[in-house]
Protein backbone atom coordinates (compact mmCIF):
# COMPACT_ATOMS: atom_id res chain seq x y z
CA UNK A 1 0.00 0.00 0.00
CA UNK A 2 1.33 3.42 -0.90
CA UNK A 3 1.55 6.03 1.83
CA UNK A 4 -0.53 9.21 1.69
CA UNK A 5 1.37 12.24 2.97
CA UNK A 6 1.57 16.01 2.73
CA UNK A 7 4.92 17.35 1.56
CA UNK A 8 6.66 20.14 -0.27
CA UNK A 9 8.66 19.35 -3.40
CA UNK A 10 11.94 19.70 -1.50
CA UNK A 11 10.66 17.37 1.23
CA UNK A 12 9.55 14.89 -1.44
CA UNK A 13 13.03 14.78 -3.01
CA UNK A 14 14.73 14.61 0.41
CA UNK A 15 12.41 11.76 1.34
CA UNK A 16 13.32 9.92 -1.88
CA UNK A 17 17.01 10.40 -1.02
CA UNK A 18 16.33 8.96 2.44
CA UNK A 19 14.69 5.93 0.87
CA UNK A 20 17.48 5.42 -1.68
CA UNK A 21 20.35 6.08 0.78
CA UNK A 22 22.97 7.09 -1.81
CA UNK A 23 26.68 6.74 -0.98
CA UNK A 24 27.75 10.37 -1.21
CA UNK A 25 26.11 13.78 -1.25
CA UNK A 26 28.28 16.87 -1.75
CA UNK A 27 26.30 20.10 -1.65
CA UNK A 28 26.38 23.82 -0.98
CA UNK A 29 23.23 25.63 0.13
CA UNK A 30 21.41 27.95 -2.25
CA UNK A 31 17.79 29.13 -2.26
CA UNK A 32 15.41 27.48 -3.01
CA UNK A 33 17.15 24.06 -3.03
CA UNK A 34 18.82 24.50 0.40
CA UNK A 35 16.24 22.38 2.21
CA UNK A 36 17.26 19.26 0.29
CA UNK A 37 20.84 18.98 1.64
CA UNK A 38 19.62 20.39 4.96
CA UNK A 39 17.04 17.61 5.38
CA UNK A 40 19.46 14.96 4.17
CA UNK A 41 21.99 16.18 6.74
CA UNK A 42 19.32 15.73 9.42
CA UNK A 43 18.59 12.18 8.25
CA UNK A 44 22.32 11.41 8.45
CA UNK A 45 22.67 13.03 11.89
CA UNK A 46 19.70 11.00 13.13
CA UNK A 47 21.26 7.79 11.84
CA UNK A 48 18.45 7.14 9.35
CA UNK A 49 20.88 6.81 6.45
CA UNK A 50 24.65 6.42 6.12
CA UNK A 51 25.23 8.72 3.15
CA UNK A 52 28.62 10.46 3.33
CA UNK A 53 27.82 14.18 3.30
CA UNK A 54 30.59 16.45 2.01
CA UNK A 55 30.05 20.09 3.02
CA UNK A 56 31.93 22.05 0.36
CA UNK A 57 32.78 25.74 -0.01
CA UNK A 58 31.13 26.30 -3.39
CA UNK A 59 29.11 24.67 -6.14
CA UNK A 60 32.17 24.30 -8.34
CA UNK A 61 33.43 22.09 -5.53
CA UNK A 62 30.13 20.31 -4.90
CA UNK A 63 29.99 19.21 -8.52
CA UNK A 64 33.70 18.33 -8.51
CA UNK A 65 33.37 16.29 -5.31
CA UNK A 66 30.26 14.57 -6.63
CA UNK A 67 32.13 13.74 -9.81
CA UNK A 68 35.11 12.38 -7.89
CA UNK A 69 32.87 10.23 -5.72
CA UNK A 70 30.98 8.93 -8.74
CA UNK A 71 34.21 8.13 -10.58
CA UNK A 72 35.44 6.31 -7.48
CA UNK A 73 32.42 4.03 -7.75
CA UNK A 74 29.89 5.68 -5.43
CA UNK A 75 26.29 6.56 -6.13
CA UNK A 76 26.77 10.31 -5.81
CA UNK A 77 24.24 13.13 -5.73
CA UNK A 78 23.93 16.85 -5.23
CA UNK A 79 21.29 19.57 -5.37
CA UNK A 80 21.37 23.19 -6.47
CA UNK A 81 19.60 26.19 -7.96
CA UNK A 82 20.28 29.26 -10.09
CA UNK A 83 23.77 30.75 -9.61
CA UNK A 84 24.83 27.56 -7.87
CA UNK A 85 24.18 25.67 -11.08
CA UNK A 86 25.95 28.40 -13.02
CA UNK A 87 28.98 28.06 -10.75
CA UNK A 88 29.11 24.33 -11.62
CA UNK A 89 29.24 25.10 -15.33
CA UNK A 90 32.76 23.96 -16.13
CA UNK A 91 32.36 20.70 -14.25
CA UNK A 92 28.92 19.87 -15.70
CA UNK A 93 30.47 19.28 -19.10
CA UNK A 94 33.26 17.17 -17.61
CA UNK A 95 30.77 14.97 -15.72
CA UNK A 96 28.84 14.40 -18.95
CA UNK A 97 31.84 13.69 -21.18
CA UNK A 98 33.31 11.38 -18.52
CA UNK A 99 29.93 9.60 -18.55
CA UNK A 100 29.33 9.74 -14.80
CA UNK A 101 25.73 8.96 -13.79
CA UNK A 102 25.37 11.69 -11.15
CA UNK A 103 21.85 12.64 -10.12
CA UNK A 104 21.32 16.30 -9.30
CA UNK A 105 18.10 17.79 -7.96
CA UNK A 106 17.71 21.17 -9.65
CA UNK A 107 15.22 23.54 -8.05
CA UNK A 108 14.71 26.05 -10.83
CA UNK A 109 15.32 29.69 -10.00
CA UNK A 110 16.07 32.72 -12.13
CA UNK A 111 19.72 33.49 -12.76
CA UNK A 112 21.10 36.74 -11.42
CA UNK A 113 20.98 39.54 -12.63
CA UNK A 114 19.17 41.33 -11.48
CA UNK A 115 19.22 39.21 -8.36
CA UNK A 116 15.97 37.30 -7.97
CA UNK A 117 15.15 34.22 -5.91
CA UNK A 118 11.97 33.18 -7.71
CA UNK A 119 11.27 30.57 -10.32
CA UNK A 120 12.16 30.57 -13.93
CA UNK A 121 14.07 28.07 -16.02
CA UNK A 122 17.07 30.20 -16.96
CA UNK A 123 19.42 28.15 -14.76
CA UNK A 124 18.81 24.70 -16.22
CA UNK A 125 18.02 26.04 -19.70
CA UNK A 126 21.47 27.57 -19.74
CA UNK A 127 22.86 24.12 -18.98
CA UNK A 128 20.79 22.44 -21.68
CA UNK A 129 23.79 21.84 -23.93
CA UNK A 130 26.03 20.42 -21.20
CA UNK A 131 25.18 16.80 -22.00
CA UNK A 132 22.96 16.15 -18.96
CA UNK A 133 19.57 14.48 -19.14
CA UNK A 134 16.87 16.92 -17.99
CA UNK A 135 13.43 15.97 -16.71
CA UNK A 136 10.99 18.58 -15.38
CA UNK A 137 8.31 18.00 -12.76
CA UNK A 138 4.90 19.66 -12.67
CA UNK A 139 4.28 19.13 -8.95
CA UNK A 140 5.72 17.51 -5.84
CA UNK A 141 4.42 14.06 -6.81
CA UNK A 142 6.30 14.22 -10.10
CA UNK A 143 9.40 15.61 -8.38
CA UNK A 144 9.38 12.52 -6.14
CA UNK A 145 8.56 10.08 -8.94
CA UNK A 146 11.08 11.53 -11.39
CA UNK A 147 13.80 11.47 -8.75
CA UNK A 148 13.24 7.78 -8.01
CA UNK A 149 13.34 6.95 -11.73
CA UNK A 150 16.43 9.08 -12.39
CA UNK A 151 19.03 6.62 -11.06
CA UNK A 152 17.83 3.76 -13.24
CA UNK A 153 18.01 5.99 -16.32
CA UNK A 154 21.37 7.64 -15.56
CA UNK A 155 23.09 4.40 -14.55
CA UNK A 156 21.74 2.27 -17.41
CA UNK A 157 24.71 0.76 -19.33
CA UNK A 158 23.37 2.16 -22.63
CA UNK A 159 23.12 5.65 -21.13
CA UNK A 160 25.66 6.44 -18.38
CA UNK A 161 24.91 10.15 -18.35
CA UNK A 162 24.39 12.64 -15.52
CA UNK A 163 20.83 13.61 -14.73
CA UNK A 164 19.08 16.83 -13.68
CA UNK A 165 15.76 16.21 -11.92
CA UNK A 166 14.17 19.66 -12.15
CA UNK A 167 11.28 21.19 -10.24
CA UNK A 168 10.04 24.76 -10.05
CA UNK A 169 11.52 26.83 -7.24
CA UNK A 170 9.09 27.79 -4.44
CA UNK A 171 6.00 26.96 -6.54
CA UNK A 172 6.80 23.25 -6.29
CA UNK A 173 9.75 23.15 -3.90
CA UNK A 174 8.03 24.96 -1.02
CA UNK A 175 4.30 24.47 -1.59
CA UNK A 176 2.91 21.62 0.49
CA UNK A 177 0.59 19.29 -1.41
CA UNK A 178 -0.82 15.82 -1.01
CA UNK A 179 1.55 13.13 -2.20
CA UNK A 180 1.59 9.36 -2.52
CA UNK A 181 4.85 7.86 -1.35
CA UNK A 182 6.05 4.39 -2.22
CA UNK A 183 7.16 2.03 0.55
CA UNK A 184 10.91 2.22 1.16
CA UNK A 185 11.56 -1.45 0.44
CA UNK A 186 9.82 -1.11 -2.92
CA UNK A 187 11.83 2.03 -3.73
CA UNK A 188 15.08 0.28 -2.81
CA UNK A 189 14.17 -2.73 -4.92
CA UNK A 190 13.21 -0.52 -7.87
CA UNK A 191 16.34 1.64 -7.75
CA UNK A 192 18.68 -1.28 -6.98
CA UNK A 193 22.35 -1.14 -6.01
CA UNK A 194 24.92 0.75 -8.01
CA UNK A 195 27.65 -1.64 -9.10
CA UNK A 196 29.58 -0.04 -11.95
CA UNK A 197 31.77 -2.35 -14.00
CA UNK A 198 34.65 0.10 -13.74
CA UNK A 199 35.49 2.47 -10.89
CA UNK A 200 38.61 4.29 -9.70
CA UNK A 201 38.86 2.45 -6.37
CA UNK A 202 38.95 -0.96 -8.06
CA UNK A 203 42.38 -2.23 -6.98
CA UNK A 204 42.14 -5.14 -9.40
CA UNK A 205 41.76 -2.92 -12.43
CA UNK A 206 43.21 0.59 -12.21
CA UNK A 207 41.74 3.06 -14.66
CA UNK A 208 42.13 6.53 -16.08
CA UNK A 209 39.20 8.93 -16.30
CA UNK A 210 39.01 12.07 -18.40
CA UNK A 211 42.10 11.70 -20.60
CA UNK A 212 43.21 14.40 -23.01
CA UNK A 213 41.17 14.20 -26.22
CA UNK A 214 42.24 16.76 -28.77
CA UNK A 215 40.89 17.07 -32.30
CA UNK A 216 41.54 13.42 -33.28
CA UNK A 217 39.26 12.17 -30.45
CA UNK A 218 36.96 14.99 -29.30
CA UNK A 219 34.39 14.59 -32.06
CA UNK A 220 34.18 10.82 -31.59
CA UNK A 221 33.65 11.43 -27.85
CA UNK A 222 30.78 13.81 -28.59
CA UNK A 223 29.21 11.29 -30.97
CA UNK A 224 29.24 8.68 -28.22
CA UNK A 225 27.61 11.19 -25.84
CA UNK A 226 24.94 11.93 -28.42
CA UNK A 227 24.20 8.23 -28.94
CA UNK A 228 23.93 7.75 -25.18
CA UNK A 229 21.47 10.66 -25.06
CA UNK A 230 19.48 9.08 -27.87
CA UNK A 231 19.46 5.77 -26.01
CA UNK A 232 18.14 7.63 -22.96
CA UNK A 233 14.83 8.23 -24.74
CA UNK A 234 14.14 4.49 -24.91
CA UNK A 235 15.44 3.84 -21.40
CA UNK A 236 13.31 6.66 -19.94
CA UNK A 237 10.22 4.96 -21.37
CA UNK A 238 11.27 1.49 -20.16
CA UNK A 239 11.93 2.79 -16.65
CA UNK A 240 8.61 4.67 -16.69
CA UNK A 241 6.78 1.46 -17.64
CA UNK A 242 8.37 -0.38 -14.74
CA UNK A 243 7.68 2.53 -12.40
CA UNK A 244 4.01 2.40 -13.34
CA UNK A 245 3.90 -1.17 -12.04
CA UNK A 246 4.97 -0.15 -8.54
CA UNK A 247 3.20 3.23 -8.40
CA UNK A 248 0.23 3.08 -10.74
CA UNK A 249 1.38 6.41 -12.16
CA UNK A 250 2.11 6.67 -15.87
CA UNK A 251 4.94 8.75 -17.33
CA UNK A 252 6.18 9.37 -20.86
CA UNK A 253 8.47 11.79 -22.66
CA UNK A 254 5.62 14.30 -22.39
CA UNK A 255 2.05 14.39 -21.13
CA UNK A 256 -0.94 14.94 -23.36
CA UNK A 257 -3.94 16.64 -21.78
CA UNK A 258 -7.11 16.77 -23.89
CA UNK A 259 -4.82 16.71 -26.90
CA UNK A 260 -6.37 14.11 -29.21
CA UNK A 261 -8.90 16.39 -30.91
CA UNK A 262 -7.42 19.72 -29.81
CA UNK A 263 -7.26 22.58 -32.30
CA UNK A 264 -5.56 25.02 -29.93
CA UNK A 265 -2.59 23.73 -27.97
CA UNK A 266 -0.28 25.18 -25.36
CA UNK A 267 3.09 23.45 -25.01
CA UNK A 268 4.55 24.13 -21.58
CA UNK A 269 6.91 22.65 -19.01
CA UNK A 270 6.90 22.51 -15.22
CA UNK A 271 4.37 23.74 -12.65
CA UNK A 272 2.57 26.12 -15.03
CA UNK A 273 1.18 23.05 -16.82
CA UNK A 274 -1.19 22.59 -13.88
CA UNK A 275 -2.47 26.16 -14.25
CA UNK A 276 -2.91 25.64 -17.98
CA UNK A 277 -4.88 22.42 -17.46
CA UNK A 278 -7.38 24.48 -15.46
CA UNK A 279 -7.77 26.81 -18.43
CA UNK A 280 -8.24 23.80 -20.74
CA UNK A 281 -11.03 22.51 -18.46
CA UNK A 282 -12.80 25.91 -18.56
CA UNK A 283 -12.60 26.03 -22.35
CA UNK A 284 -13.70 22.44 -22.83
CA UNK A 285 -16.82 23.21 -20.77
CA UNK A 286 -17.59 25.88 -23.35
CA UNK A 287 -16.99 23.45 -26.20
CA UNK A 288 -13.65 24.97 -27.25
CA UNK A 289 -11.18 22.33 -28.42
CA UNK A 290 -8.27 23.39 -26.23
CA UNK A 291 -5.46 21.01 -25.30
CA UNK A 292 -2.09 20.93 -23.62
CA UNK A 293 1.19 19.17 -24.17
CA UNK A 294 3.47 19.18 -21.14
CA UNK A 295 7.11 18.47 -21.90
CA UNK A 296 8.55 16.20 -19.22
CA UNK A 297 11.83 15.25 -20.89
CA UNK A 298 13.72 18.21 -22.36
CA UNK A 299 17.05 16.40 -22.75
CA UNK A 300 16.98 14.31 -24.85
CA UNK A 301 14.53 16.54 -26.74
CA UNK A 302 11.64 14.45 -28.11
CA UNK A 303 11.14 16.71 -31.13
CA UNK A 304 9.82 14.09 -33.56
CA UNK A 305 7.47 12.59 -30.99
CA UNK A 306 6.06 15.98 -29.96
CA UNK A 307 5.63 17.04 -33.58
CA UNK A 308 3.69 13.82 -34.26
CA UNK A 309 1.48 14.42 -31.20
CA UNK A 310 0.74 17.95 -32.45
CA UNK A 311 -0.06 16.90 -36.02
CA UNK A 312 -3.77 17.75 -35.73
CA UNK A 313 -3.38 21.13 -34.02
CA UNK A 314 -4.36 24.31 -35.87
CA UNK A 315 -2.46 26.76 -33.66
CA UNK A 316 0.24 26.06 -31.08
CA UNK A 317 1.61 28.33 -28.35
CA UNK A 318 5.07 27.32 -27.18
CA UNK A 319 5.81 28.66 -23.74
CA UNK A 320 9.31 29.49 -22.53
CA UNK A 321 10.20 30.28 -18.95
CA UNK A 322 13.72 31.44 -19.84
CA UNK A 323 15.02 34.22 -22.06
CA UNK A 324 17.69 33.20 -24.51
CA UNK A 325 18.26 36.71 -25.89
CA UNK A 326 18.55 35.33 -29.37
CA UNK A 327 15.80 37.89 -30.06
CA UNK A 328 14.39 35.04 -32.11
CA UNK A 329 12.69 32.88 -29.50
CA UNK A 330 13.29 30.92 -26.34
CA UNK A 331 14.93 27.51 -26.03
CA UNK A 332 11.72 25.43 -26.10
CA UNK A 333 10.24 27.59 -28.86
CA UNK A 334 13.31 27.40 -31.08
CA UNK A 335 13.76 23.66 -30.73
CA UNK A 336 10.10 22.77 -31.12
CA UNK A 337 9.61 25.04 -34.11
CA UNK A 338 12.58 23.35 -35.77
CA UNK A 339 11.06 19.94 -35.07
CA UNK A 340 7.66 21.06 -36.43
CA UNK A 341 9.34 22.44 -39.55
CA UNK A 342 11.06 19.10 -40.21
CA UNK A 343 7.76 17.30 -39.63
CA UNK A 344 6.22 19.61 -42.30
CA UNK A 345 3.67 20.90 -39.82
CA UNK A 346 1.24 23.46 -41.21
CA UNK A 347 0.04 24.65 -37.78
CA UNK A 348 0.59 28.28 -36.82
CA UNK A 349 3.05 28.59 -33.96
CA UNK A 350 3.61 31.40 -31.53
CA UNK A 351 6.37 31.50 -28.93
CA UNK A 352 5.69 33.29 -25.64
CA UNK A 353 7.75 34.02 -22.56
CA UNK A 354 5.99 33.64 -19.24
CA UNK A 355 6.85 33.47 -15.56
CA UNK A 356 10.26 35.06 -16.05
CA UNK A 357 11.79 35.80 -12.65
CA UNK A 358 8.67 34.45 -10.94
CA UNK A 359 6.10 36.68 -12.68
CA UNK A 360 2.60 35.31 -12.10
CA UNK A 361 1.09 33.08 -14.74
CA UNK A 362 -2.51 32.40 -13.80
CA UNK A 363 -5.51 30.73 -15.43
CA UNK A 364 -6.47 34.15 -16.83
CA UNK A 365 -3.13 34.43 -18.64
CA UNK A 366 -3.52 30.89 -19.99
CA UNK A 367 -7.06 31.69 -21.22
CA UNK A 368 -5.71 34.79 -22.98
CA UNK A 369 -3.12 32.65 -24.76
CA UNK A 370 -5.85 30.27 -25.94
CA UNK A 371 -7.85 33.29 -27.20
CA UNK A 372 -4.77 34.40 -29.16
CA UNK A 373 -4.58 30.90 -30.68
CA UNK A 374 -8.25 30.96 -31.65
CA UNK A 375 -7.82 34.39 -33.31
CA UNK A 376 -4.69 33.19 -35.13
CA UNK A 377 -6.39 30.00 -36.35
CA UNK A 378 -9.44 32.02 -37.50
CA UNK A 379 -7.21 34.41 -39.41
CA UNK A 380 -8.29 37.34 -37.22
CA UNK A 381 -4.79 38.00 -35.89
CA UNK A 382 -1.22 37.31 -36.87
CA UNK A 383 1.00 35.53 -34.33
CA UNK A 384 2.76 38.08 -32.14
CA UNK A 385 6.02 36.27 -31.51
CA UNK A 386 8.12 36.41 -28.35
CA UNK A 387 5.60 38.35 -26.29
CA UNK A 388 6.26 38.61 -22.53
CA UNK A 389 3.08 37.51 -20.76
CA UNK A 390 2.23 39.96 -17.98
CA UNK A 391 4.68 42.65 -19.06
CA UNK A 392 3.54 46.11 -17.89
CA UNK A 393 2.97 48.51 -20.73
Amino acid at each position, binding site marked *: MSIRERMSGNEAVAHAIKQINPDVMAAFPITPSTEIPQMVSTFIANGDIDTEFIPVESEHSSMSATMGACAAGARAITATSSCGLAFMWEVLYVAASD*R*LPIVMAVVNRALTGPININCDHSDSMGARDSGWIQIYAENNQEAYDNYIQSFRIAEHPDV*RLPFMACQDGFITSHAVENIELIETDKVKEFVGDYNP*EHFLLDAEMPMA*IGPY*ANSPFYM*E*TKMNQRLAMKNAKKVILEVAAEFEKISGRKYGLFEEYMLDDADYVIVIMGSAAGTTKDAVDHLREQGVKAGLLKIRVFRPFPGEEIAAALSNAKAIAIMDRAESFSACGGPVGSELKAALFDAKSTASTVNYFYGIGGRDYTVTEALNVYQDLIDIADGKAKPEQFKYIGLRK
Partner: protein
Amino acid sequence: MSQATDITKINEQSPYYDITPGNQIYGGGGSRKFNTGEWRTQTPVIDWDKCTQCLLCTPVCPDSSIPVKDGKREDFDYDHCKGCGICERVCSFGAITMKEGL
Protein backbone atom coordinates in the same frame (compact mmCIF):
# COMPACT_ATOMS: atom_id res chain seq x y z
CA MET B 1 37.37 -9.22 -13.64
CA SER B 2 36.97 -6.78 -16.50
CA GLN B 3 39.36 -6.56 -19.43
CA ALA B 4 42.07 -3.93 -19.63
CA THR B 5 41.73 -1.54 -22.57
CA ASP B 6 44.10 -2.36 -25.41
CA ILE B 7 45.13 1.21 -26.11
CA THR B 8 47.28 0.14 -29.04
CA LYS B 9 43.92 -0.38 -30.80
CA ILE B 10 42.64 3.10 -30.00
CA ASN B 11 44.30 5.57 -32.32
CA GLU B 12 43.56 8.45 -34.67
CA GLN B 13 41.99 6.04 -37.16
CA SER B 14 39.59 4.45 -34.64
CA PRO B 15 35.87 4.87 -35.39
CA TYR B 16 33.78 6.35 -32.59
CA TYR B 17 32.23 3.01 -31.65
CA ASP B 18 35.64 1.54 -30.81
CA ILE B 19 36.32 4.25 -28.23
CA THR B 20 35.35 3.49 -24.62
CA PRO B 21 32.49 5.46 -23.03
CA GLY B 22 33.94 8.66 -21.57
CA ASN B 23 37.32 7.71 -23.08
CA GLN B 24 37.98 5.72 -19.94
CA ILE B 25 41.14 3.62 -20.02
CA TYR B 26 41.06 0.40 -18.04
CA GLY B 27 44.35 -1.07 -16.79
CA GLY B 28 47.41 0.83 -15.54
CA GLY B 29 50.60 1.97 -17.22
CA GLY B 30 48.95 3.27 -20.36
CA SER B 31 50.96 6.50 -20.36
CA ARG B 32 54.08 4.53 -21.36
CA LYS B 33 52.42 3.93 -24.73
CA PHE B 34 51.56 7.59 -25.22
CA ASN B 35 54.43 9.26 -27.04
CA THR B 36 54.62 12.74 -25.58
CA GLY B 37 58.21 13.28 -26.71
CA GLU B 38 56.97 14.76 -29.97
CA TRP B 39 55.81 17.87 -28.07
CA ARG B 40 59.49 18.80 -27.57
CA THR B 41 60.97 21.96 -29.08
CA GLN B 42 64.39 21.47 -27.43
CA THR B 43 66.21 18.19 -26.87
CA PRO B 44 68.73 17.33 -24.12
CA VAL B 45 71.91 15.65 -25.33
CA ILE B 46 74.38 13.99 -22.97
CA ASP B 47 78.17 14.12 -23.31
CA TRP B 48 79.21 10.79 -21.79
CA ASP B 49 82.84 12.00 -21.44
CA LYS B 50 81.68 14.68 -18.97
CA CYS B 51 78.99 12.63 -17.16
CA THR B 52 80.23 11.41 -13.73
CA GLN B 53 77.12 9.34 -13.02
CA CYS B 54 76.35 11.56 -9.99
CA LEU B 55 72.62 10.97 -10.74
CA LEU B 56 71.54 14.49 -9.80
CA CYS B 57 69.59 14.69 -13.04
CA THR B 58 67.41 11.60 -12.62
CA PRO B 59 65.21 12.61 -9.66
CA VAL B 60 64.49 16.13 -11.02
CA CYS B 61 63.17 14.93 -14.36
CA PRO B 62 59.38 15.61 -14.23
CA ASP B 63 58.70 12.94 -16.84
CA SER B 64 60.87 10.11 -15.47
CA SER B 65 62.71 10.20 -18.77
CA ILE B 66 66.21 9.49 -17.41
CA PRO B 67 66.25 5.73 -16.84
CA VAL B 68 68.72 4.23 -14.33
CA LYS B 69 69.99 0.66 -14.51
CA ASP B 70 72.43 -0.95 -12.08
CA GLY B 71 73.18 2.42 -10.45
CA LYS B 72 74.00 4.17 -13.70
CA ARG B 73 71.92 6.52 -15.80
CA GLU B 74 71.24 5.57 -19.37
CA ASP B 75 70.41 7.74 -22.35
CA PHE B 76 67.22 9.83 -22.32
CA ASP B 77 63.83 8.30 -22.98
CA TYR B 78 63.08 10.52 -25.95
CA ASP B 79 59.58 9.07 -26.33
CA HIS B 80 58.57 10.89 -23.17
CA CYS B 81 61.11 13.70 -22.59
CA LYS B 82 59.38 17.04 -23.25
CA GLY B 83 62.60 19.05 -23.35
CA CYS B 84 62.03 21.17 -20.25
CA GLY B 85 65.77 21.55 -19.64
CA ILE B 86 65.73 21.03 -15.86
CA CYS B 87 68.38 18.29 -16.22
CA GLU B 88 70.69 20.68 -18.04
CA ARG B 89 70.25 23.27 -15.26
CA VAL B 90 70.96 20.76 -12.48
CA CYS B 91 73.99 19.09 -14.06
CA SER B 92 77.13 20.31 -12.23
CA PHE B 93 79.49 19.06 -14.92
CA GLY B 94 78.07 20.62 -18.09
CA ALA B 95 77.39 17.15 -19.43
CA ILE B 96 73.90 17.97 -20.69
CA THR B 97 73.20 20.55 -23.39
CA MET B 98 69.89 21.47 -24.97
CA LYS B 99 69.87 21.45 -28.74
CA GLU B 100 67.17 23.20 -30.76
CA GLY B 101 64.43 21.02 -32.21
CA LEU B 102 63.18 17.48 -31.74
